[in-house]
């Protein structure tokens, strides 16, 4: 069954049609990639799923439930976690604290029991720490565990953001350009992690990525978008050789077999 179903979704920003009648399916256990030139509407699709924007038309369903009936802060409770293209971490907190916020959807104690630090709150806290510690181990974040985000290098922040999303134990992980700005080695690590997330943790992944090398390495199906419209869907190779896709990228020099990532 499809985990995420997007049907004929359209979103306009004033006169600009950012997403134009797009339909797509993300199946359970799959890595689905969205590619396309700058301004194609990829991040906007993520923001629609996150319910930051209301589509003008169309349906978005997750696990059979209508997402459009819910607000942005209810989306994570379905098991959807995400990262942002331009890293949105809690800057004045440590790595550990950031990951712990990722646990928010599993929160079971209220303000009152938190204030008096009831035994229940204590036990819950222990569970959160254990879960977060697993993520820290998985992503090799131990050296940065108690560091403030503010002072961390870009590459580490990207990983922390992935960690924060993983800490929520999602069913679907939305990654907006997970490899942008990363070095070759860091991109390699990211590819391994995404594979592990899919195969070992059984989490479905939907990602936006310009690095075609990474896209071909990890994703099953790929959808190419341009000007908010679907151009083609298929394997990475099929999409890259599709005439409409080549046309859309013509002159931008962005798409290539080896995958040159954007600066």
């Amino acid at each position: 069954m499809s985990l995420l179903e997007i049907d004929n979704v359209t979103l306009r920003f004033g006169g600009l049609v950012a997403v134009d009648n797009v339909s797509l399916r993300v199946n359970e256990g799959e890595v689905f990639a969205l590619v396309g030139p700058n301004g194609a509407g990829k991040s906007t699709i993520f923001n629609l799923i996150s319910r930051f924007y209301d589509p003008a038309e169309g349906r978005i369903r997750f696990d059979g439930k209508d997402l459009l009936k819910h607000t942005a802060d209810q989306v994570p409770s379905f098991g959807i976690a995400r990262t942002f293209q331009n890293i949105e971490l809690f800057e004045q907190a440590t790595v550990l604290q950031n990951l712990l916020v990722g646990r928010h959807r599993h929160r079971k104690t209220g303000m009152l029991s938190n204030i008096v630090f009831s035994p229940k709150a204590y036990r819950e806290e222990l569970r959160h720490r254990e879960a977060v510690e697993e993520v820290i181990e998985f992503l090799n974040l131990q050296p940065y565990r108690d560091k403030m985000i503010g002072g961390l290098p870009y590459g580490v922040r990207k990983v922390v953001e992935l960690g924060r999303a993983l800490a929520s134990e999602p069913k679907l992980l939305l990654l907006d350009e997970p490899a942008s700005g990363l070095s070759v080695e860091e991109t390699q690590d990211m590819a391994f992690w995404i594979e592990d997330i899919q195969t070992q943790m059984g989490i479905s992944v939907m990602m936006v990525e310009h690095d075609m090398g990474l896209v071909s390495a990890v994703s099953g199906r790929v959808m190419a978008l341009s000007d908010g419209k679907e151009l083609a869907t298929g394997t990475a190779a099929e999409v890259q050789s599709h005439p409409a896709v080549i046309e859309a990228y013509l002159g931008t020099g962005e798409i290539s077999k080896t995958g040159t990532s954007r600066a």
Partner: protein
Amino acid sequence: MRFVFKTSYDADISLFKHRAQAVWYGLLLLLVLATPLYFVAIGDAYLLGEITGILILAIAGMGLMLLTGHTGLPSLGHATFMAFGCYLNINLLGAGVPWLIAFPLSGLIAGGLGTMIALPVLRLHGVYLALATLAMSMLTSDFVVIAEPWTGGIAGAAVPDINIFGMEINRYSTPYKFYYLVLFVAILIVWFYRNLLRTPTGRSFTAVRDSEISARAMGINLTRTKAMSFFLSATAAGLAGALFGHSAGYVTNETFDLVMSITLLLMIVIGGLGFIHGAFFGAIVVGIIPVAIANGRTFLSTTFDVNINVPGLESALFAFILICFILFEPMGLYGRWLKIRTYFELFPFYRKDMFKRQKSYLKTDRVQ
């Protein structure tokens, strides 16, 4: 140099990072518990009253710190919540409610009223909230006058003494008891505050402060979280207001004025935004400046026969200190303290840029 080896998750969750820290806070507790002994010995409790005043300010400061320092919502109206707490306390006590009930109740009602006032503007962004609370603070004096039957209006109202199971507590006749009572409330609130910060509620506050977008994407309801922070914040301010009333003995429409609201905000900035310690450091500065100025004046006039009588000297000095902090020490007194401590802990490995924040990246793709 000290390394902290963590052997279990408890090490992260517990109140103190390591044994030495627990020992330091234990010593500090002993010190504040023993302070009155000194004043008993010299037989003059005047300064103890000032210290009690600092503690009351720190309680209000902690309230504002939670809202501004930890949730990122500015308020220029916390004196109003203090007024709520103070007058509610007076009226409840006047109606025969025992202090042990009247005091917490006035805090809670002040918290509830504060939240109700704040709710309509919570959806708006920082500066609107600041303006709205500023307006509220400016109107407070008028409302106190209008609500004369409960507040005594311009003539003012006397604050009844505290009575706990027959034990009378009054700032002047029993300064030591009053000190211990305020100290107890302050420590209790510090404990609540610490608990909050190590559990999901506190983390949701700081998440909202640092990135509303991310907070929402993690499942945090912005309005509810902000309202919760406002409630706790105004409750603490209300409690501080009630204690302030007991400390002043008599309150009028001019007691909880705009200057007090602004002082509270400046206080937590000077102390160090985002740290519980900041509320205390700030309160100490605010508490000491008037005493220092008064002493300086007496010293100058008695030894050199120089009489300085500049009106507004206190505010000017205060503003000057504030500007210095914003320019040279944005992390406040507590930040300065952290740096000094790190310097000694890491000696000789301290680097000058250790506390510098990395420039944040462009946020062009931020969701609007």
